[in-house]
Each structure stands twice: as structure tokens, then as C-alpha cells.
């Protein structure tokens, strides 16, 4: 065992920290889930710089323009960027679609789609959930009907994060309505500018615009945009899910919240109550700190398994469920530490910590839902991991 970073990774971390310090505006509010046009412009700009540094896709194999970086280094990258609340990482393209294409894509698809992702030039979004298909994703009804060399797609996708900024969507659509539900689905890539695609914003409870509903009305897509075999899309998608679950982001955000809240509390004291050193505040924040460190180790364990050719499954679910729930609890505790001030939103002149705490608390609700709810993750741990019988 060795819990240290390698000398090389230490050096990388130092360089990355310096880069982020240089690039991030002093008044940056954090990687808000609701970037206005100016913030979005900065996000894209930073993403390109990360791409130029070779960091955006460093874990990709050399043949696709990556550095074949070990998984732990790439997790370290996510850890540091998340802790810095910096935007610019690309989950949908770099971490979700690209690895799927590497496994299931044709040579032409790889040539067409991977380079722009690597250059940080294209925004993808993920078309999975539908109004009637959330946790029971395989019940999805959006249809792709064969018409010569094309599919005609009809239906709608919901909770589609960043669809309003996206150039492309990778989506699941039903190609065989008569087959058992997992066996009639195909994985299709659709340009968002295709006629018949419309995007309706859905504001979340922070007032932020991340979600959308995407409608498909007779959208014509060439069959060459299908990834994997027809009707095997579910299995293409399942491979993909294993790429987005190291979950280090949750613990990084939680650590940052604890550090900033502790710093704030030690300078100002809580509102009229116990001073910052008060035992309740100390105890509560330390509790969160320890929990976040436990989550962080679970996340690195997932990365370590991947680096050694093991396929994390139950382990990734553990990291996700514990990380997301810890972030929720941590944000809640930090809000409590700020007392009455804890409710003041970004923009309010009296808001401590630029109002990031209530914002993060509200946003943290999405973590325990998105990419498989906590309940679904626990089902996975129990059935796939522990071998309990399915209900």
C-alpha cells in the first residue's frame, strides 16, 4: 500500500494549482450551475486552455491524442479542478461519450467525433431520461423508426443538462418496440441543429438553468450516427455509466465548503452565537471534513481499480452514493454554521462567502438523483455487489 501521490503527480498537482490560480478571476463565484453568457464564455475559454495543456483528455489512450495517463492522475485532475470550483472540465464529451466511442464506435465515428472533443471545441449533452422514464430508464419510449439509411426520431428527453449550450446530443431511442425493453434500444448521436430538435429550459430550485427538455419531431438522422449495433444500445450505455462514477468531485466540493466555512467562521464568528472556536462549530465542521476524506479515499479506490484493469461496479456506486450524500450533509451543516446569514443568496450585499453556501446546498440535491439515484445505487451495491436476489 502507498497512499502518497507519486513525485510526478505531486509536480503535476503543483503546476495545475498554479495554473488555476493564474487563470481564475479573483471574484469567481464558483463553477455555478447557471452560467450566464459571460461565464459560459469563460468556461469555454478555460476548457480550450485545459485542452491545450493536454489535461482535458490526458487519460485517453495515445492513439486518440491522449497521454495514456494513469486513472489516478486523471482523478487528481478532477479533484483539484473541483476543489478550485473551476469550470471547464467536460463530463459529457471527454468522460462519457469518448470512452464509449473508443469501445463501441466505428473508425469513422472515432475520427469524426473524438478530435473536436479533445480540443475542447464541442459541447455534448446526454439524452437518457424521459418524462416517463427516470430510474426505470429502459422503459424509454422515444422512437427511432427506420427509413432507408436514416432514422426518424420522435419523442422527448428531459433533465437534459446543458442541452441549451450543446452542439450534439448522444441519446437512447427505441428501435424495436416489440422487443423486451432492454433489447430494443439504440444509441444515437444527433446534431442539435437538426430540423425538428427544440429545447425548452427547465429552471431548477436555485433559479438556475441547467436542465432542459428536448423535443424530437420527425428528426431525421443517418444510421451511420448509431453507435454499436441496432437494438444493442442499452449495453453501449451501460458501459458508459461506468465512466462517470469515480465521484471525486463530490468530496472535493465538500472539502472546499468545509475549508471556506471554517475560514469564514474563524474570522467572523457565527451570528451572535458561539464564536468560531465554539465546540459545536468545530465538531460539526470536523465531522464533515472527516467524512469528505473518507469519500475521497473511496473515489481514489475506484480510480486505482480502473488503473489496475479491474472494473469498478459496486465500488463506483459506493463512492457515488456516499459522496453525493456527504456533499448534501456538508452543505447543510455549513449553512447551519452561518446561522441566519446562511440563507442569503449570491448578490445580496450581506451574504457571507458570496452566497455560495445556500446555492451549493440547493444544488447538492441533484447529486443524489442524477446519474442513478441513491436508491438505485444501493440496489446495485446489494444485487450486483453483494449478490442479493433481485426483488
Amino acid at each position, binding site marked *: 500500500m502507498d497512499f502518497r501521490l507519486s513525485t510526478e503527480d505531486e509536480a503535476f498537482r503543483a503546476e495545475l494549482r498554479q495554473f488555476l490560480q493564474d487563470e481564475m478571476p479573483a471574484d469567481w463565484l464558483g463553477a455555478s450551475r447557471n452560467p450566464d453568457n459571460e461565464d459560459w464564455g469563460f468556461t469555454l475559454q478555460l476548457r480550450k486552455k485545459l485542452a491545450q495543456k493536454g489535461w482535458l483528455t490526458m487519460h485517453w489512450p495515445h492513439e486518440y491524442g491522449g497521454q495514456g495517463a494513469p486513472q489516478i492522475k486523471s482523478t487528481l485532475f478532477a479533484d483539484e479542478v473541483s476543489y478550485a470550483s473551476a469550470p471547464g472540465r467536460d463530463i459529457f464529451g471527454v468522460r462519457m461519450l469518448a470512452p464509449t466511442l473508443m469501445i463501441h464506435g466505428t473508425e469513422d465515428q472515432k475520427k469524426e467525433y473524438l478530435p473536436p472533443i479533445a480540443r475542447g471545441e464541442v459541447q455534448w449533452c446526454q439524452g437518457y431520461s424521459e418524462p416517463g422514464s427516470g430510474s426505470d430508464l429502459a422503459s424509454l419510449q422515444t422512437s427511432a423508426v427506420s427509413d432507408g439509411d436514416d432514422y426518424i426520431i420522435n419523442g422527448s428527453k428531459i433533465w437534459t443538462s446543458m442541452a441549451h449550450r450543446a452542439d450534439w446530443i448522444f441519446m437512447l431511442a427505441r428501435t424495436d418496440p416489440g422487443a423486451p425493453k432492454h433489447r430494443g434500444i439504440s444509441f444515437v448521436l444527433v446534431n442539435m441543429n437538426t430540423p425538428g430538435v427544440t429545447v425548452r429550459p427547465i429552471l431548477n430550485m436555485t433559479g438556475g438553468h441547467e436542465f432542459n427538455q428536448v423535443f424530437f419531431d420527425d428528426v431525421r438522422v443517418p444510421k451511420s450516427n448509431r453507435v454499436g449495433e441496432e437494438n444493442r444500445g442499452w449495453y453501449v450505455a451501460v458501459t458508459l455509466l461506468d465512466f462517470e462514477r469515480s465521484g471525486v468531485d463530490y468530496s472535493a466540493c465538500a472539502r472546499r465548503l468545509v475549508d471556506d466555512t471554517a475560514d469564514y467562521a474563524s474570522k467572523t464568528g457565527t451570528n451572535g452565537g458561539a464564536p468560531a472556536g465554539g465546540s459545536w462549530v468545530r465538531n460539526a465542521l470536523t*465531522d464533515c471534513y472527516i467524512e469528505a476524506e473518507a469519500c475521497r479515499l473511496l473515489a481514489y479506490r475506484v480510480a486505482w481499480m480502473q488503473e489496475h484493469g479491474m472494473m469498478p461496479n459496486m465500488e463506483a456506486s459506493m463512492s457515488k452514493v456516499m459522496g453525493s450524500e456527504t456533499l448534501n450533509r456538508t452543505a447543510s451543516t455549513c449553512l447551519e454554521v452561518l446561522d441566519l446569514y446562511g440563507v442569503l443568496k449570491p448578490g445580496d450585499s450581506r451574504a457571507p462567502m458570496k452566497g455560495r453556501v445556500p446555492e451549493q446546498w440547493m444544488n447538492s440535491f441533484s447529486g443524489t438523483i442524477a446519474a442513478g439515484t441513491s436508491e438505485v445505487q444501493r440496489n446495485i451495491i446489494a444485487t450486483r455487489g453483494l449478490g442479493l436476489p433481485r426483488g
Partner: protein
Amino acid sequence: MDLGLSETQQMLKNSARAFLEQECPHSLVRAMEQDQKGYPPELWKSMVDLGWTGLAFPEKYGGTEGSFLDLAVLIEEMGRALVPGPFFSTVVMGGLTILEAGSDAQKAEHLPRICQGEETLTMAVTEPSATFAPGGIQVEARKDGGDYVINGTKLFVPDAQTADVIIVAARTSQGANAEDGVTCFIVPASTQGVSIVPLDTMASDKQAEVSFSNVKVPAGAVLGEVDKGWPIVDRAIQRGAAAKCVEMLGGAGAVLEMTVEYAKQRVQFGRPIGSFQAVQHHCANIATYAESSRYMAYQAAWSLSEGLPAAREVSMAKAWVSEAYRKACLLAHQSHGAIGFTQEHDLQLFTRRARVAELAYGDPKFHRELVAESIGI
């Protein structure tokens, strides 16, 4: 970063598990709860023959030069099997403390005997004030010519009743700082004036009250330097806490397996209860508690093993693992229903020990405070 065991550690783990499954069944664990000595000499001898007591000591004392991390791997398996007896007290608290702080003569006297299984030890830190903080050490050791005279009471001393040697943390001077003025003594349990009264604990482990009434020891009994013994005690507590974490981890693993097995077999409403999501989620949570405990515990053990500063890692682990193990046991009981609450079922063997282990070498509250200090909250 490497989060796996080495090949030799994996071999040690496998062989320890196989041995303990054979030689330390739960029936033995139960019997030893009622036994005055608390462990069977045959099991102790077998463990010695396997080289376990000598695992973490240098070859020149009869050991096999293993690391603290190797020892942790072994202790995880002992925790899983609920091994009764003075292994932990003798090796972790006694032997490693002498190895780190002892004079050549002290090492030459005690370590070979530990490796050979001829001597058992314990360390007496806590007193009726029940704290692992330096201020709790009030047993007095007064200089008397070339000797020291020890007076006072140590409480909650593990395995004192069977120990041949007790390392006693005593106060030799009172200063402004509680950490100054502590001195450690190596005291044979047979010394006149030492009296040991067993405590009746929830886990039927063998804790005791150890009273010192004008116990005279020579200056040669001082371990380390006079008045500067706190760092020795502190390091011993760190090792004790880290080793206790891997011991608890072993227990948590057993509790998980027991619960999953029960959930697969117990049928209600015509199906195994493990097919119900409510029970599945209990099991998933137990597994998550156990796995998060694994890396917290091993991070602490590894830090100590590498000789790195480990205060933060150890305290984080003890705070986290203690609570995680307790919560895992509660969920295990909930999943087992009434049978888990009975004496005949093995689950309670773990639950009672989990609670005792939670308090050993500092409870979560105590260690959270140390973490707060180390990170400056």
C-alpha cells in the same frame, strides 16, 4: 498510490483467515467470555508458533522484520475472528512501545520473550478520569533515592489480569503543560503493591483496575526519559487507535457477510428478505461503512508504518471507523430481526465488542477534536 495488499500480505491474510476459522470458532470466543484467564494457552501457543507475536519485530530479537502495516493485515483477520487474548496488548501496546522507546537492555530483555510468546504485556494509560488526554495521567511516581515509588489507580487497563509486565504512564512532575512531567515505567505485574481487580464489561473483554500502593521500581524501569514520556504514550495511543481500527474493520467485514447470508436465506412472504429493497439498502449501507472504513483504517496504519506524521490520519480513522462499525452493527440487527438480539446468535458478539472498541484509545468525540486541532479549525 497503491491501495492493494502486497503478495506477502495477501498470503498472510489468507493463511491467518484459514487458521482462525479452524482454531478460533465462535464457540471458543463464547467460552472465553466466561473464562477467567480469557484465552486458551493452546491458541496462544499456536499463534506464537506461526510467528505472529514476532511479526513486527527485528530479527535480532527473534522477530521476522514485518512492518506495522503487515501487523495491521493480521489484526484485521483477528478482528474478524474475534480472537480472545492478549495479542493486541502485548504486541501493539507493549512490544512496539518498547521497540520504539526502550533502551538496548530493555529491548533485549523483553522483545525476545514477546516473540517467543513467553511474556505478555499491557499498557496502563487511563485512570478513573477516563481520558486519553495527557492531563488524565495523575498516578504519581516519586523519586526515592535510586528508585521510584508509584501510587495511584489505573482504570480500564486491557488484559492486565494476565499480563506479566505493565507499562505504566505516571506523573513525575506537575507543570503548566500536562504533556510535561509524564514518565513511562516498565513494571512487572508481580511487583509488590500492584493489585489487579477485573472489571465486568459489556464485551466480557478483560479490562481491569490496576492499583499501585507504594510500588517501588528501580530507575532502570524508566522507559525513555524522565518527565518526557508523553510522546511515547501519544505514539502508543496512535498505534493502538490505528490497530483498533483495522480490528474493527475485520469485525465489520464479518458482520456484513453474516447479514448478507441471512438476508439470502431468511424467507418471508414467500421470498428471501434480501430481495426486499429495504433490507438490500441496509446491506448496501453496511458494505459502504465497511469499505470506507477500510481505506481510512489502512491510511492510518500505513502512515504509522512509514514513520510519517500520522496524527490527522489516525484520528480521522478512529473517529470514522468507530462510528461506521457501530452503525453497521445496528443495521445488521435491524436486518436480522429478533434472532440477532438473542444470545445464541453470533451477531451480538460483534455488537458488544464494537461498542467497547469505539471507546478504546479515544472515542470519536476525542479524535474529532484532535483532527480539528491538526487542520486548524
